[in-house]
Structure formats: structure tokens, C-alpha cells
């Protein structure tokens, strides 16, 4: 219950951030949240932001400087992402979602899907390692990447279908 209340407050805070245009607020949030976020996640976020914002250099609202607009845009995204990461390092999302068994099940389902991919990818990679002689993958990486992509596509198709059947069998759609 406590978690649910915190979650609702946090959601409204995130909405507020999304609507706000105050860069000082964004900066403050980023600095406050920073100590609670792991370095690895921070890097991933930065890379993602750079990639995502590149197109905005070309497609920005006319009359505004693209740089200022981009800075604002990125700061807001950082503030939202970092505060979410910080929030969930304190609050267990599953407990926060306990008010709805559907939401809870959906969330754990997507998490399970994700972790099953991670494991499959891990075993895929070690299988490739054990079947190739050289230590570095080198040129065989590209066909490998292609194989992984199509394999994962098929896997997700089949998995998703069977997971759905399993959910149905256990009464999820009752």
C-alpha cells in the first residue's frame, strides 16, 4: 500500500516534469538523483540520448535554436529517466503494482521475457565461442549477428505464443 501511494505520487511528478520547461528544475532533479544511479546505467542512458537526439538537429521547431532546444529536451529526458531509476532503487515496482493483479502479471511477464532473452543470448554466445577456434570472433561476428537476430525473432514469436497459452492455462483470462 505504501508503495502504491509512493508510486502514484511519483507518476504525477514525472508528468509534471514532462510538462515543465524549467531547465533549473531538470538540473536539480538530475543532480539529486545522480548518486542513486549505477554508472553503467548512466552511460547507457547518455548513449541513448545522443542517438535519439541527433535527428532533432534537423527537425526542430522553427524559430528556436536547435542547440538550446536539444539541451532542454535532453535535460528533461535525463531528469525523467534518472529520477525513475532512483525511485525504483527504493521502491519495489512489483509491490507498487500490487493493487492490480493484471498490471503485476504483465510487468513480471515482460521482465521474464527480457531475462529469458538475456540468458538465451548468453548461451548462444558461449555456444559460438565453444564452436569457433580463435579467441576473438573477428569476421565471424557479422554472420553471427545476423543469425542471432533471426533466431531471436523466431524465438520471440514462438515464446510469446506459448507464454500466452501458459497464461491462459493458468487462468489469467478468467
Amino acid at each position: 500500500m505504501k508503495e502504491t501511494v509512493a508510486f502514484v505520487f511519483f507518476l504525477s511528478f514525472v508528468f509534471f516534469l514532462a510538462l515543465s520547461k524549467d531547465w533549473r528544475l531538470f538540473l536539480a532533479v538530475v543532480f539529486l538523483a545522480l548518486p542513486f544511479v549505477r554508472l553503467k546505467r548512466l552511460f547507457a542512458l547518455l548513449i541513448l540520448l545522443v542517438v535519439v537526439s541527433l535527428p532533432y538537429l534537423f527537425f526542430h521547431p522553427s524559430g528556436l535554436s536547435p542547440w538550446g532546444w536539444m539541451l532542454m529536451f535532453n535535460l528533461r529526458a535525463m531528469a525523467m529517466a534518472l529520477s525513475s531509476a532512483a525511485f525504483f532503487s527504493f521502491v519495489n515496482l512489483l509491490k507498487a503494482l500490487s493493487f492490480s493483479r493484471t498490471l503485476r502479471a504483465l510487468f513480471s511477464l515482460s521482465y521474464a521475457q527480457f531475462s529469458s532473452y538475456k540468458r538465451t543470448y548468453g548461451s548462444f554466445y558461449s555456444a559460438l565461442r565453444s564452436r569457433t577456434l580463435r579467441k576473438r570472433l573477428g569476421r565471424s561476428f557479422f554472420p553471427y549477428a545476423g543469425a542471432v537476430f533471426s533466431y531471436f525473432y523466431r524465438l520471440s514469436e514462438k515464446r510469446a505464443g506459448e507464454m500466452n497459452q501458459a497464461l491462459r492455462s493458468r487462468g489469467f483470462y478468467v
Partner: protein
Amino acid sequence: MFELREVWFSYGRETVLKGINLKLKEGERVVLLGGNGCGKSTLLKLMDGLLFAEKGKVLWKGRELTPSGLRKMEEEFRRSVALLFQDVEVMLFNPTVEDEIAFGPRQLNLQDVEERVKKWGNKLGIKPLFKRSPAELSIGEKKKVALASVLVLEPEVLLLDEPLSNLDPRSTGEVIDLLWELHITTVVATQNLSLAAELGERAVLLSEEHRIIYDGDFEGLFLNRDLLLQANLLHLHRHRHGRLLHSHFHPHDWE
């Protein structure tokens, strides 16, 4: 309890069940045997109302399982029939083992969920795993968790797809005993001929041509070597002891 009448099923162009007839009485224990790809898992999914017959009928308590028919009685049906998937990973997605076992009973609004979860956790010896995430368990442990989350429903009909694969010898024995303790209708699919007779009284054999080629007791089945060969459950094995060459039939009794 269940009745299948001339059931046909195909995935796209591939027909995997051809004219299946099967009648299941209450309390009966059927073992569904057959080689890889003969359609055992598909048949169980048809009986669990996850797939639907293309031709023919699947009846549960005299009521036909069709998408619309099932919708009307889904809660009753799901409480009464439970399926253990062959690939148990698709069943596991909760944050802890305890939640995993409680998932079904909570969805179906059953009574005394906590007690049931404890009881079945103890019976399968997975109480020490309760706080762990199912994702990180070994394959055999996953199987036990999935088995517990099916048994916890205490259904009238249990459909089990390879329930013994990946279990160590002791757990195999324990699960077999556990299944005999329960007095419920079961259908177990397996390709393990040596354990099959311990799982039920009635053997149903599916051929590679996706038809039922035997339905009866195990004595009759074991005496009929040609049928077993036809269903890919036996093969001719040759091996040597020093200079002596042996050649005999033996079952595929490993995973």
C-alpha cells in the same frame, strides 16, 4: 471426463493429428506415448482448450471445447483442468518461486492460497527455493516449481507433458509416488518407455503418421515389438563385449 471424436489438427500445411479417438473415464491414468514430433504436446494443448480441433470434437464433461463454448465456462474449466507444459520456462515469470506457485490459485480465486502453496512446496521439496527467482534455477528445479504450480490447483484432470524429464533419480521416484497418491484423472505424455508403465495403467501410442496405433494395457504393448518400432520407441542396438557382438532392441530411456 474427456472425449475426443475423430480429431484432426494441423499447423499450417503440416497435419499433426489425424482422426484421434480417445475416451477418458474419471480417475483413469493414461500414458501418451510416441516419438518426437508425433503430436503428443499438441494433443494435450487441445485437451487444455489452448488449441482447437479443425475437424472432429473435443468434449469435456459432454460439453464441446470451442473458442466460444470455452469462454462461457472458462473459470470452471481452468479450475478443473491443468496442464504442465513441456518447456516449463514458458510457465515461469513471477519474481519468486512462492509467487509462481500462488499465481494460478490467485487468478482462479481459490481459497487458502498460502496454505496450499506451503503444502505443495513441501511435497515437492522446493521449500528452500521459495524466495529465489524461478529464472535462476536449474532445469530440474524449474520443472519441480512448474509441477508445484500445476498441482497446487488440485484439479480434476492433470495433463502432464514430460513431467519426469531432467529430474534426478530420487526426484523421479518421488514425483511418481506423488502422482499415485492423488486420485485424479491424468494424461501423461512421454517418450520414456521404461518409466511409462509406472505412470499409468493405460497406454495410448501415437505413430509417426500421427494416428493412434495402440490403446490398451501395458502388457499388450510391451509384447508388441513391431508397434514400438513403428512408433520410434525402440531401436536396434549393437554393441560389443570384447570379441562378442551383441545386437538387441532397447528403449530410448534417456532425455
